[in-house]
């Protein structure tokens, strides 16, 4: 025992060095793949023939990749809460909704009480009603508001046992969208425009200054000009940047003191608190960081759709996000990203397209998108039964999830000492 101790302390710095270079290598991979996808859609796709172009536009439109990136951002946020800290959150859609509505309030003509408009580095046309703020700032504001909301939701509920916590978060996830549905008349003030939603939002621009656009090899790349609804390529770049930020933050946090505290709490709360991990602070931090990313996701989603509607923020979103985290491998950021991209694509494009091809091939008339409930439910159940650690597990998570609970007999033994 005493002989082993020096060995451990020696190997410790080496291990963390390894994991850092590991994350750096992955960062290169991420930027590389993102860049290749962008180059492909901007430069190669127009050169391909009619047939190949149509095929790709059907099976893998850039718009659906953008939407998948929204899911990625939120799934990374949920991964911090569920995967790192082990707190089951079934109401993540609340942050998504708050973020979306903050974007709608701060980037549209919705508040017509403000007749001259409040502008701040915005690409919106001048002299309109409402508030128009640069979308990068809106991202930060929305993230902060959601982080605060996460703390407000978390503070009273984190004392509860884990399964109760799931239900309380679920309650919040229901109340907040309902607030947006009913919010057209809050003491006579139209706050959310009810089921009609808020649309359109301001067109965002990649940068608030600089030349309107640069021309590069036959393609124009917008810099400070507002992006129209069909400028999916430029939006893709923006969304990738936001996703990259989330990945960076969650990877760095995991290496640090806070991340290790989360993992300790997830694995054994009591042992963690005995070792001096501040339970409440760490859990609240997990909630706040997760909610921050949920807020970013909400803004990105609003920008992607150029509108917000309250009925989009349904409970199903929370569950699909959970399925993404579980499928990819709880706690493993890269696994979660793959899970999110895969399921988002499957949900938005893959299932309808597969269904269409199947129906065409076999002359059947099966409504495939209606099977998505079955698919997502089965994914959750089968993963929990047969591969709890996800498709791309971390070694550490696998150990924890495969470990059988202590039996009652052991508990009795401990109690008698």
């Amino acid at each position, binding site marked *: 025992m005493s002989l082993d101790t020096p060995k451990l302390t020696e190997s410790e710095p080496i291990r963390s060095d390894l994991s850092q270079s590991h994350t750096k290598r992955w960062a290169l991979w991420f930027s590389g793949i993102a860049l290749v996808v962008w180059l492909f859609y901007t430069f190669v796709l127009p050169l391909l023939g009619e047939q190949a172009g149509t095929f790709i536009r059907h099976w893998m439109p850039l718009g659906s990749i953008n939407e998948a990136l929204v899911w990625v951002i939120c799934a990374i946020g949920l991964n911090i809460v569920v995967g790192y800290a082990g707190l089951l959150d079934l109401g993540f859609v609340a942050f998504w909704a708050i973020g979306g509505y903050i974007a709608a309030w701060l980037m549209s003509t919705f508040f017509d009480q403000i007749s001259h408009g409040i502008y701040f580095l915005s690409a919106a046309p001048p002299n309109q009603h409402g508030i128009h703020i640069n979308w990068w700032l809106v991202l930060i504001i929305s993230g902060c508001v959601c982080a605060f909301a996460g703390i407000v939701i978390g503070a009273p*509920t984190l004392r509860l046992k*884990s399964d109760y916590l799931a239900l309380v978060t679920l*309650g919040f996830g229901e109340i907040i969208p309902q607030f947006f*549905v*009913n919010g057209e008349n809050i003491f006579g003030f139209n706050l959310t425009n009810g089921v009609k939603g808020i649309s359109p939002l301001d067109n965002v621009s990649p940068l608030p200054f600089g030349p309107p656009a640069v021309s590069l090899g036959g393609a124009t790349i917008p810099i400070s000009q507002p992006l129209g609804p069909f400028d999916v390529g430029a939006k893709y770049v923006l969304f990738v940047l936001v996703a990259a930020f989330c990945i960076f933050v969650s990877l760095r946090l995991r290496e640090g003191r806070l991340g290790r505290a989360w993992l300790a709490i997830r694995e054994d709360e009591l042992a963690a608190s005995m070792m001096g991990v501040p339970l409440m602070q760490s859990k609240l931090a997990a909630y706040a960081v997760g909610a921050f990313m949920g807020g970013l996701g909400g803004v990105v989603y609003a920008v992607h759709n150029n509108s917000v509607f309250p009925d989009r923020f349904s409970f199903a979103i929370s*569950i699909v996000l959970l399925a993404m985290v579980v499928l990819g491998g709880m706690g493993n950021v890269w696994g979660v990203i793959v899970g999110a991209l895969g399921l988002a694509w499957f949900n938005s494009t893959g299932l309808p397209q597969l269904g269409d091809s199947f129906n065409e091939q076999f002359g059947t008339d099966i409504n495939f998108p209606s099977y998505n409930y*079955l698919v997502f439910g089965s994914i*959750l*159940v089968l993963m929990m039964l047969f591969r709890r650690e996800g498709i791309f597990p971390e070694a550490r998570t696998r150990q924890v999830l495969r470990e059988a609970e202590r039996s009652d007999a052991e508990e009795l033994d401990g109690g008698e000492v």
Partner: protein
Amino acid sequence: MTITAVEAAASRPAMLVKEKIERVIGILLLVGLTLWLIWNFTTAPVQFVNVGLAGLRLGAIYALIALGYTLVYGIIELINFAHGDLFMLGTVFSSIFLVKLFHAGTGSPLDWLLMVITMVIAMVLCAGLNVTAEYFAYRRLRKAPKLAPLITAVGISFIFQWLGMRLNGSAQLNWPMVIPKGGLTFGEITLDYSTIVVISVTIPLLLILSYIVQSTRQGKAMRATAQDQDAARLMGINVNRTISFTFGLGGAMAGAAGLLFLETFGSTRFDLGFQLGLIAFTAAVLGGIGNLQGAVLGGFIIGLIQAFNDGLPYGFGQRWSQSVVFAILILVMVFKPEGILGKRTIEKV
């Protein structure tokens, strides 16, 4: 190192300031609720009684669903997330059998018999589904970390919703009802026929359930398994069968609630279970989860609160009713997580 009761009482630490503040806020909330009820009663007494009767009817249905949550939680400490959707399937099964197969709802006296038969069928089907889900999914996860069965239950809830969508379609369907509209009138107060039927079906069911749990061998086995599975196994109790039986009982209650809901509101929807399940879960928590009487009490309280909120002149109105119920859920969790009738338990290490 044993501590005698006297010592424990003497050494009990003084209440923390935080706890005191919490208690004061909790009491203030209760006082506010009482004042609100009195104010409503004095301004509109007739409406108050009528709404209250509707609340009892709703509460009886919630109580039946809440029992399913509390039975399962009591025995294996699992929040059976799919239970609300099981109830939804109960309404769908009832509508299929009662209207599509038996063609009831025409007003003939035979309808009442068909309704009873349908209720038994719905109870059996829901019990069977619940037992099947337990057999294929939860049973394998009994020793797993808590997150696993909970996520599984969420998945099963989605599968049930898909089944409901297959059987019922994605839109709300309206059905003819066996129970006639209207009711007995006493002056301005109306006692709906559906209220009478719902209450007179619920009470015997609750009595039967309580008899099973309190006075039969199987009930004794259930209580023993809930206390300590290993010890129960050592006493010769078939733990797996007992847990299956408990799931079956809960499912049967959900099936009965499904028929009663169909006969009260006359409509089925595939996403009904999610909302009602959550409300019923709130009821179970309010009464003290794991406690049968608590679930019934909580069901009636939540039913009354929801009806008062929807129907009284100073309520928030129907569009906020879910928010009100979830706010209650959160408040109960924060101020009194053990519920009204539950015992405060210390989490085992």
